[in-house]
C-alpha cells in the first residue's frame, strides 16, 4: 500500500516535471506555419475539452464524497430549496456546529429558548438559562465557537450573552459593558479566525451602536469597531478567514465592510437597483460567497467576494420571495451555513427554518 507521504512525493515530482517542461517549451518556441497553427488550435480545443471533462469529473467526485452539493467556486449558481424544519415559534437566529451535525435555532415567541436539531431536522434538545420562565428572556442570535464548540446566545431582554457547553449545559452569562454606561445590549454574534467573539451592541441611542470584539472566551473587551453614529441597529455579523468583517447595518439598509484593522473600506448600499439592500439582518460567509438576508425584501441576496476586501462584492442573485409556499419567506431573519454547504434560513412569520442547498 502506498503511504500518504509517498503519494505526496510522487505528486510533487510530477508537478516539478510539468513546470520544467513548461519553461523549456516557452524558451524554445519557434515561428508557426499554417499547419502548425491548425495543430495548435486543435490542441487548444482539445485541452479546453479536457478542462470541461476534468471539471465535471471533479464535481462528480466531490458530490459522491460529501453527500451534499458543495459551494461552487465560480459565482454563478444560486441554491435551491430542499426542506424545512418546523417546530420553532418565530425563529430569529440560527447557527450550525462546526461538524454540521447540530443546528441551533432561537425561538423568540412561546417558550423563548434555543431549539437544537440534528442535521436531518429532528429536534434533539433545547437550551435555556438556569432560571426564569419563558417570559423572562428573549434569545435572538446564536453563534458556535469553532474552537470550543460552545454555544453563544444573545438575549435582548436580559442584556446578556448566554454560553452553553457543546452538550447543552448552561455555563455562564456574559454582560459586556455599554459604550456610555450600563450594560451593552448584544444582538448579532460571530466568531473571528483568531477566536474572538464579535457582537453588535444596540444599547443606547444610535450614537452608541457599535461592534464589540470580545476575547478570553468573551470575558474581556478587546476593541470596538465603528465610530459614533456609524451604525443604526446593526444586526448580523460575519467574519471571513482573513479577519475581514461584514456588518448588517440594518436600519441604514447596508452591509458595512471592514478590513482586519477595523477600517471601513466599502459597503453594499440601500437602494432599488439589483443587489441593493432594504433591511439586512442575518449575514453569513461561505467560501467566496456572502449571503445577506434582506428581511423586508423577503429574500436572501448572494454576493461574490473577490478576495480583496476593498473591492465591492459582486451581486449574483437572490433566492426566496414573499409567500408561504416552499422556498418562500415571510420575514426571514437569520442565516447559517454548514460545512457541507447546506444553508439554513429562519423564516420568522412562517414559523420554520428553511434548508437550501447547491
Amino acid at each position: 500500500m502506498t503511504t500518504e507521504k509517498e503519494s505526496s512525493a510522487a505528486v510533487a515530482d510530477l508537478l516539478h516535471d510539468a513546470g520544467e517542461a513548461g519553461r523549456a517549451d516557452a524558451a524554445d518556441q519557434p515561428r508557426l506555419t499554417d499547419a502548425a497553427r491548425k495543430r495548435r488550435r486543435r490542441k487548444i480545443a482539445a485541452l479546453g475539452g479536457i478542462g470541461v471533462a476534468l471539471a465535471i469529473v471533479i464535481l462528480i467526485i466531490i458530490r459522491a464524497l460529501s453527500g451534499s452539493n458543495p459551494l461552487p467556486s465560480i459565482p454563478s449558481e444560486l441554491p435551491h430549496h430542499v426542506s424545512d424544519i418546523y417546530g420553532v415559534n418565530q425563529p430569529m437566529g440560527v447557527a450550525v456546529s462546526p461538524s454540521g451535525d447540530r443546528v441551533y435555532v432561537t425561538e423568540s415567541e412561546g417558550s423563548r429558548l434555543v431549539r437544537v436539531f440534528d442535521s436531518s431536522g429532528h429536534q434533539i434538545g433545547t437550551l435555556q438559562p438556569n432560571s426564569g420562565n419563558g417570559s423572562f428572556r428573549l434569545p435572538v442570535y446564536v453563534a458556535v465557537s469553532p474552537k470550543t464548540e460552545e454555544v453563544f446566545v444573545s438575549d435582548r431582554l436580559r442584556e446578556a450573552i448566554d454560553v452553553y457547553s457543546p452538550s447543552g449545559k448552561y455555563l455562564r452569562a456574559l454582560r459586556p459593558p455599554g459604550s456610555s454606561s450600563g450594560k451593552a445590549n448584544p444582538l448579532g454574534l460571530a466568531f473571528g479566525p483568531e477566536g474572538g467573539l464579535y457582537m453588535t451592541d444596540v444599547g443606547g441611542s444610535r450614537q452608541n451602536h457599535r461592534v464589540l470584539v470580545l476575547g478570553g472566551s468573551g470575558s474581556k473587551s478587546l476593541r470596538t469597531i465603528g465610530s459614533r453614529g456609524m451604525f443604526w441597529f446593526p444586526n448580523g455579523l460575519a467574519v471571513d478567514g482573513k479577519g475581514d468583517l461584514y456588518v448588517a447595518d440594518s436600519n441604514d439598509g447596508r452591509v458595512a465592510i471592514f478590513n482586519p484593522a477595523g477600517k471601513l473600506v466599502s459597503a453594499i448600499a440601500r437602494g432599488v437597483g439589483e443587489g441593493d439592500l432594504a433591511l439586512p439582518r442575518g449575514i453569513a460567509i461561505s467560501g467566496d460567497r456572502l449571503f445577506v438576508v434582506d428581511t423586508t425584501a423577503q429574500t436572501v441576496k448572494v454576493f461574490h467576494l473577490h478576495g480583496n476586501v476593498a473591492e465591492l462584492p459582486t451581486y449574483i442573485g437572490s433566492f426566496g420571495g414573499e409567500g408561504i409556499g416552499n422556498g418562500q419567506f415571510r420575514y426571514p431573519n437569520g442565516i447559517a451555513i454548514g460545512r457541507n454547504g447546506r444553508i439554513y434560513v429562519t423564516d420568522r412569520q412562517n414559523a420554520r427554518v428553511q434548508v437550501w442547498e447547491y
Partner: protein
Amino acid sequence: MRKSARFAFVVGCVVSLSIGVGTAAADNGPHVKGQGLTPDTCAACHRAHTGKAPYNLKENQEALCFTCHGTTGTGSNLDVQDGVGYSGTGRSGGAAGALRGGGFKYALINTSEPKPVRTETGKLVEATIPALGTSELKETTSAHSVDESSQIAWGNGPISSTSEMGKSISLTCGSCHDPHGNGNYRILRPIPTEAGTKTEVKIPDATTKVYTTTNYWASWDTNQMEFEYKVSEWCTQCHTRLLAGSGSGNANSGDATYTYRHRTSYTKEEWEKSAPPKAKPNCIQCHVAHGTDATMGANASQVAYPNGVVGKETSFLLRLDNRGVCQTCHNK
C-alpha cells in the same frame, strides 16, 4: 503548456461550472419621513398594484410594524408586544424599562402594589404604581386588539336612547398612529381611522421623548403637559359617549347604555388651575393605551361589557388589579 492552451483549459472549466443567474427585486428599509422627491422607502411597506392589505400594504400591517417594534423587532428599542423599552428608547436615548402604554402580549405593571400617599384626612397627595423589571414580563389580561379582528368601539356614536353600544370596527397599529410621522405626540393621528369624527385633536410632539416609566400612576408626561388635558378628547373620538364632564356621575346623559358616567373631561383651564401634575380624571389615569397585566377577582371578573357579555378580558386596560384605580383616589 502554452499560455493560450492554459487559458483554454481555464475557460473550459469556468464555462462548465457556470449557470445563469437570477434577478431580484430590490426593496427598502424602515419608514422615515423626509426622503425627498424620489423616496426609496415607500416600497418597504407598500405595493402600488399588488398590495395584500388595506392602504396598498404589501403585508398585514401588524406583521410589518412588529418587524421593528415587536418582540422580534431588532430595528427599534420599542417592543410594544412585550411592553419593553430597551436602553436608548426614543432616538434621544432614554432609559430602559417598562413602556408607558403597557404591552400587547406582556406588560410590566406591578398591578397589585399601589403605594398611595395621603394626608391625615385621607386625601391623596401622590401615588406610585411600580413598574416591574424588564425580565419580569407578565401576560396581558386585556389589550387593544390590533390584529384587524372585528370588535366594538364601545361608546362610539352620539347619545342614543336606544341600546346602541358602538359600531363594529377593526384596529391595527395604523388606526391610531401615523407611521409616516405627523409632528403629533406619539405620531397619533389627529383623527383615528375608525373614529368616524371630523374634528381633529392635535397634541404637539414632545421635544424630549420619554417612552418608559417607573411609576404607572404618573400617567402624565412632563415633557408635553398638553397631552394631559387633551388625551381624553383624543380617546373619545372612538369612545365618543365616554367623554363626560364634572358631575356626570349623578346626571343622566339620556343614553340608554352610557347613562351615568365617571368624569373623563378635563379642560385646559382646569388643568392650569391644578398644576403641577397630579392625578387627573382623564382616560389614561386609570387605563393604559396598549395592554395591562392587571387581574380581576371574583366580582370584578364578572363585570360585563356594555352589551352584557362577560368576556375573558375583564381587566379593561386598567392599571391596577380589581378596582385599585378607584380606591387610590376615592379611598373608601
